[in-house]
């Protein structure tokens, strides 16, 4: 109880910080850009966030993270608009919304779809922030007991979760993870200072920049992949009005919002479980509990309310492992982690103690950001709908030049632009070969920490690798890793077996 009161006190101080002129302005800019990134197909939240990171170099750390966080959860709101209006998900977590949202739009109820999504997203986002306020500090204190073996085990768990839950092939996911870890090895080794794998390029002494890799893998490759496609299938769905469901739909809507909140928040806490998984699981749950599952696929309102709430609740809850443990749950959150480090902040349990004004300022700004987004999403839905109608042939060159400016601004050198273009080609090829790019990004961001904690653990160990299994917390986490791997292998082998049987 005392802790809760302390947290509320800190939160009030956070509102004072977040409500200051510059922070409020950049929160507004962040959520606007996030909405824009979410609305516009062809640029996803990873590339969008990566693009803005170099621009935050000159900002105060609190202001920078407020803006970048705004982009992160703003994308979740924005992706809904394209899903509902033109059946194109603005970002991956909005794929599910296409199924029901666009059907509702065709029935002339686009406003209801957007309204329910907006209200659910707001509720889920606020609940997740409350969880961060009350769960974050005790979790951070608990995490102070963690040593290198625990951190190593948690990071490996996050990577395994990501591969087990996302992507078609566990094997390709593991290879992609290995590639990402290897990319993190390029440059100066943090302990001994030995420069590795730079092949004579002085620019590689500091290694690759994560922003460059992210922009190349996600931004450039996405645009190269969509150039040949016809992105002009945007149809004007007519004026949007009537944002609220019918009276008889409110009960079902509210229940699915609560369920979506729980699912999103739970999965947001697990490193490696992304927002896409949260929305897919929420949709499955809604189908299972529905009295009439045959309505799904034809505009079932709970098919929007649940998943949209889940993906926004996930966005808020994903901040908990980031702030308290320094472990990102997805590629976008990995970029936030990189931004933290870039601004001289070390996310982890000590952050609450060492930089409380930063932590509570960012948390308070998330409340403000969610309110701004609710205002944006509903009354301004018609305006956002018009943005979607901008021809792609006008849009993608502008996005490309902004991306190149972003890469250039990192070290004021065209080297980073060249590296970004190279990773753009690599990303394009890997996408075609169905290798998950999120695995490369996440493992790259965690790579140095994984190596450091692994080597520190071995140095302290009397029994070699057994240290990871003999300490209680790391032992439990490693057991969970093996269980997850075994379960994933089993389900995939079972799927192959059934496919082979049905073909016979």
């Amino acid at each position, binding site marked *: 109880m005392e802790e809760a009161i302390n947290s509320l006190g800190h939160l009030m101080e956070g509102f004072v910080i977040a409500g200051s002129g510059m922070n409020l302005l950049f929160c507004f800019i962040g959520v606007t850009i996030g909405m824009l990134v979410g609305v516009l197909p062809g640029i996803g939240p990873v590339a969008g966030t990566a693009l803005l990171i170099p621009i935050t170099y000159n900002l105060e750390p609190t202001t920078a993270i407020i803006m970048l966080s705004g982009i992160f959860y703003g994308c979740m709101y924005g992706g809904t608009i394209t899903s509902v209006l033109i059946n194109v998900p603005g970002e991956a977590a909005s794929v599910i919304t296409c199924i029901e949202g666009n059907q509702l739009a065709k029935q002339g109820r686009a406003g209801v779809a957007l309204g329910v999504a907006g209200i659910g997203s707001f509720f889920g986002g606020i609940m997740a922030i409350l969880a961060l306020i009350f769960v974050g500090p005790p979790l951070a204190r608990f995490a102070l007991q963690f040593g290198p073996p625990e951190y190593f085990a948690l990071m490996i768990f996050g990577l395994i979760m990501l591969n087990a839950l996302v992507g078609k092939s566990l*094997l390709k996911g*593991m*290879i992609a993870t290995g590639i990402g870890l290897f990319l993190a090895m390029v440059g100066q080794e943090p302990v001994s200072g030995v420069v590795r794998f730079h092949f004579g390029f002085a620019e590689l002494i500091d290694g690759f920049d994560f922003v460059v890799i992210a922009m190349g893998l996600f931004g450039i490759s996405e645009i190269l992949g969509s150039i040949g496609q016809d992105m002009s299938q945007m149809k004007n769905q007519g004026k949007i009005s009537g944002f609220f469901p019918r009276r008889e739909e409110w009960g079902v809507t509210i229940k699915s919002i609560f369920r979506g909140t729980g699912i999103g928040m739970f999965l947001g806490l697990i490193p490696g479980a992304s927002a896409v998984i949260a929305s897919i699981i929420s949709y499955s749950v809604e189908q299972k509990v529905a009295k009439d599952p045959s309505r799904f696929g034809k505009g079932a309102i709970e098919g929007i309310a649940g998943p949209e709430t889940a993906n926004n609740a996930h966005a808020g809850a994903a901040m908990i492992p980031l702030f308290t443990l320094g472990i990102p749950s997805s590629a976008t959150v990995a970029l936030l982690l990189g931004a933290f480090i870039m601004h001289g902040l070390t996310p982890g349990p000590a952050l609450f103690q060492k930089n409380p004004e930063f932590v509570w300022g960012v948390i308070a700004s998330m409340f403000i950001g969610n309110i701004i987004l609710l205002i944006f999403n509903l009354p301004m839905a018609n305006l956002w709908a018009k943005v979607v109608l901008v021809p792609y042939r*006008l849009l993608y*060159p502008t996005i*490309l030049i902004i991306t190149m400016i972003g890469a*250039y601004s990192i070290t004021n050198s065209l080297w980073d632009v060249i590296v970004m*273009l190279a990773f753009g080609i690599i990303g394009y090829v890997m996408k075609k070969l169905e290798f998950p790019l999120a695995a490369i990004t996440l493992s790259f961001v965690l790579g140095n920490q994984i190596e450091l904690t692994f080597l520190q653990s071995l140095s302290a160990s009397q029994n070699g690798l057994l240290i990871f299994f003999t300490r209680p917390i790391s032992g439990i986490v490693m057991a969970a890793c093996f269980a997850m791997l075994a379960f994933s292998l089993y389900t995939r082998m079972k799927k192959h077996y059934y496919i082979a049987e049905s073909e016979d």
Partner: protein
Amino acid sequence: MKKITTPLVSGVLLLVLFGYFAYKSLSYPYIAFGRPGAGFFPFWLCIFILALTIIYIYEAFKEADIDILPKGKELRDILYVFGAMLLFVILADFTGFNVASTLFLAMLFFHGGYKWYTSIAMGAAISICLFALFALTLGVALPVNDFGF
């Protein structure tokens, strides 16, 4: 004889690449001052990737080919856009950001079906706005030519 498929080629490339990196890892200290050195982790990581790649190559023999290379118009479009980006990179330091960006945008707008004069006008307008935003407002040191733009 089994057809040479794209996954198979990519698997072999990965095998060669990480085989080389594993070899290169051994040129860094494996053990230093009684602790794992700079070459320890990358070496075993490369071995891990090689083991997975061998399984991937084995799986590739059973899989159907994946068509990754774009063809026809799609290939021409991608090569054109990529060529425009490379041209920007080559020119930016000499001509300055505004000229290089105008040329880059004009090429892509023209390719998108706009008239050449419209493409140049739009390219110039967007370039100037971006220069004003990034260089003048946000303080990003974009490349400039001898005339200062």
